[in-house]
Every structure is written in C-alpha cells, then in structure tokens.
C-alpha cells in the first residue's frame, strides 16, 4: 500500500491530468484533424457553422 504522501501526489496528478484532458481534448482532435486532413481545410470553415 502506498504511503499517504504518495497517495496525495497521485490524486493531485490525476486531477491535473483530468483538467488538461477536459480543456485540451477538443483542441487536440482539431489539431490532429487539421494537420492530417487531406486537403487541409481553412480555419474559419472549421469553427463557424455557416462558412
């Protein structure tokens, strides 16, 4: 069983990872899609529902 200190550290790391994923997941998908798309779309078409 890990010590209390390690546990606290793990919980903090998990919290940080969750925050990063929460705010970073959609930008990450858009980045991956944008860079690997063929042909590469323009950014305005990506975000705006009307363009």
């Amino acid at each position: 069983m890990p010590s209390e200190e390690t546990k606290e550290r793990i919980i903090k790391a998990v919290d940080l990872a969750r925050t990063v994923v929460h705010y970073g997941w959609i930008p990450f998908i858009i980045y991956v899609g944008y860079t690997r798309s063929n042909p590469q779309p323009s950014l305005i078409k990506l975000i705006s529902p009307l363009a």
Partner: protein
Amino acid sequence: MSSSIPVPVDPPLPAPGPSSSSRWPYNFYNRFSAWRTSLDLPNPGTSENLTKEAKGTLLNNYLFDGARAELSKSLSMNPMFTVTHSFNLGSQTIPPSYGFGAMFANEQLFLHGNIDHEGNLSGRLNQGWNANNVTKLQAQLSGTPGQSVLQVEHDFSGSDYTLNAKAVNPSPSDLTGIYMGSYLQSLTKNLALGVEGILQRQTPDMSEIATAYLAKYTSTDKSWIATAQLQGAGILQATYWQKLSDKVDVAADLQVVAAPGRRDALATLAARYELRMASFRAQLDSTGKVSAFLEQKFAPTFSFLVSGEIDHFKNAAKVGVGVMIESSSMTPEEMGLVPPPGHLPMPMPQP
C-alpha cells in the same frame, strides 16, 4: 499417389508428427489447438456487441423530444475529419443545449469529442493495435466534481473467442473502481457462450463480485440472432432479431427482473424499414408505449427527423422534430463521389 485424396483447404491442419513438441503438455496443447483450428469456428464478436443488431432496430436509442438541429461539416474524407454543431431545444427532459463535436478517424485511430455549452466533455478514443487488439478509452468530464467517468477497455479477438477487460473509474492510489472481464467463445458455428465477471470496489475494504452469463445463437444464414444475458441478481435480458428482407428487420427484447423484493418485466417489439431515402422505426412495449421514428432524407446532405411516443397508460406524449444538415467544404472529386476519369467531366459545384 496423394493426389487422389481430397485435401481440405480451409482449415490448415498442422502436420501431426514427431517434433520438438512431443513432451506431453506441448503435445496436448498442439493437438488441442489443431483440433480447434479444424473446427473453423467463427469469431463471436465482442460481448458489448452481443445485442448490437437488436439495438439497431429498437428505437430506444433514437427517440428524442423537442426540437433539434445538427449541422455537421466534413472537412476530409480520408482520414475522416468532421466537426458538428448541435442544438437542442424545448425538450421535456433535458434543458436546452448547444454542443460542439469533433471527430477524427483513420484506419487505426478514432478520436471523438463533444463539449456542451456548460463545459461538459465526453470523449472517446479507440486505438487498434493490429487486427486482434483494440484499446478503447471513454471519458465524461464535467466541471462539478464527482461526476466524471473514465473507462478504459481492451478487446482481444482470437479466431473463435473474444476477451475483454474493462475498468471504470480506476483509482491508482487505492485501487477502487469497477473492473470487468468477459470471455465469449464460439462453441459451434451458430452458438457462442460467454461469461462476464464484475468486481466492484467502492471503498478499499468493500468489494463485491458478480457474474453474468451470455449466450448468442446466430442462424446459419445470419438472418436471425437470438441472445440471452443472465446477470447474477436475477436479471435476464433476452433479445431476438430477424431480417425479413433487405429492407425490413424486426426485433424483440424481453427484460425480466426476478430479484427478491422486486419483480418486473418489460417486453418490447420493434420493426425497422430501411428505404432508399428514409428509415422508419416503430416500437410497441408492454408498458403501453407506442413510438415511432422517421428519418427522411430530402437530399444527400439534408435529412429531417420526426420522433413520437405515446404512453397510453399514463396518457402522456412526446414529440420531437429535427433536422440534420451536412455541409462539405470539399469538391466531389475529393470526396470520391465522382466516377473515375473516362466518364463525362462534371461541372464543379461552387460552395
């Protein structure tokens, strides 16, 4: 000499004979696996997809009320990259919402994310390592603490069996969470049986184990499928799905709860018509609910949805209408819709 003997082509039988594997455990294993290969059993599919066909016909997952609009824009076909804007309004059950989704998929990787205006994120990642191994991650993250869910899953499909391991909200510090493992094995060409174990550890010193049993019978021409799932607490779910023609299929679902103190059952009957420009589902269940769902395509990029449910016993009704608009920033050539060169060149539509 041997040319007169018909040689079986499909199951490659390993040549029996003295080799390095003549000691008994290896010998036994080799003979067992040779016998298993010679049976040529199909892969039974994953335990998660056990009732996939029936679920696709039943309209529980399609029903909605209020108004909804979905604007999806496909930005690339290969790899697939799509962004979606969705709007929900006027529903009796869920508050109005706006959601933005993004999806990326190539042969190995599938990424999907959807975030609503309150900042709740649902995300999905599937990574296929090779033909047999797939790892899936699924997360629901919300700003309010204690409502986030993370699910990690790995599927291994062998030639005639499927293994799946799943962990829901695993905590590395005290190993709490829900852990599931399932094994589904084809016994004959039609029948597959499986077992599923669930370990729930809500706190480090309290854990609970439950088992479930799965069975699936597929007819030889795959025109009908019957499944049954028996869960430890006396919950039985049985489904039956049949394809009547290429356009019509029907499904029946029966859920029985026979736990001490609670006895309940729900039967559902559904039919689906898959027409060229429309798909129609109708459903009737034993709680007196009649529901229908129509998806009508007016153009390849525009479809119109109507969904309705009448609860005859409670005298309540739900109606939903929706539109789905797909716009593309690509020319038809880029989408691969235009026939190969040699045909008459089509004028390029200007977006």
